[in-house]
């Protein structure tokens, strides 16, 4: 198998077009199943009541926000090392979805925190580093938005993402340390004591759905980006014609 073959924009554009519906439908289906499990299969938690159902969104969103960042960093490293333009486009296509999940993790966390802790927000390590991750996402997208020249944007964004990737773990541990040093555990991010298997299953299903959704959305976005960058080539012109007819 020749990787370069798949890294060629024209090939990838076509492949991405073929895959997208599968991922999209998969995401829809799994979301349906996940929602069914979250609301109709999973039992009421004896400690937190019904509020715990937020977990079925909160945890997948939190996972995705972190994972997407890592994937972006991976693509950027590849792009800078091998000068493959497609990799930068992947990073660009992923960022908005990452930011969305990051925001959703914060939002659902806040809505969960109010009934459980009595506060919308506490300066806990997880929460704080999640907030900083959101800042990073916004910063990266703001940087891209501010640069018109696509090549320059690609590289500048990639450098920032990599610096962030080195920094995020440091930030996480520093915040964690700061928090444990300062205050006694007046508030704890307690896990539901015995996570019933069905809850775990529900969370996993939702997480996979989020994955499929991310891939589908990113593929659509990357197709747009490819088309924009390659519009002078013959194949892109044909693709545009095909799109117009559709």
């Amino acid at each position, binding site marked *: 198998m020749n990787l370069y073959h798949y890294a060629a924009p024209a090939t990838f554009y076509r492949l991405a077009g073929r895959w997208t519906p599968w991922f999209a439908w998969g995401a829809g289906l799994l979301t349906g199943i996940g929602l069914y499990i979250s609301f109709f299969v999973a039992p009421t938690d004896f400690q937190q009541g019904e*509020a715990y159902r937020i977990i079925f969104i909160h945890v997948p969103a939190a996972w995705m926000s972190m994972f997407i960042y890592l994937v972006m960093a991976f693509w950027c490293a590849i792009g800078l090392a091998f000068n493959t333009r497609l990799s930068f486009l992947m990073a660009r296509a992923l960022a908005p979805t990452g930011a969305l999940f990051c925001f959703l993790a914060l939002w659902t966390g806040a809505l969960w925190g109010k009934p459980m802790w009595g506060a919308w927000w506490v300066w806990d390590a997880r929460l704080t580093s999640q907030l900083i991750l959101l800042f990073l996402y916004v910063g990266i997208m703001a940087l891209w938005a501010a640069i018109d020249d696509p090549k320059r944007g690609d590289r500048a964004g990639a450098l920032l993402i990599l610096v962030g990737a080195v920094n995020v773990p440091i930030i996480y541990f520093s915040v964690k340390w700061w928090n444990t040093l300062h205050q006694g555990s007046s508030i704890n991010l307690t896990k539901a004591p015995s996570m019933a298997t069905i809850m775990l299953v529900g969370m996993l299903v939702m997480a996979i759905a989020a994955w499929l959704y991310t891939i589908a959305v990113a593929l659509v976005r990357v197709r747009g980006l490819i088309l924009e960058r390659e519009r002078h080539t013959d194949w892109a012109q044909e693709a545009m014609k095909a799109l117009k007819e559709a």
Partner: protein
Amino acid sequence: MVWQSGTEFWSMGGYGLYVWGSFGVTGLGVALEVWLLRRGQRSLLNRLQRMQRWEAQ
């Protein structure tokens, strides 16, 4: 079945605001992203065509 009635389902044991706030905003966020994506695709296509026509001149 966990729920006895529709009202019970919507009230979520008193936590309706929080639970539906979470799921609702998540739904909204995803819908917004999909909508923006579609609109972006369409406007991209228009833009590319405009530029093409311009370059052809």
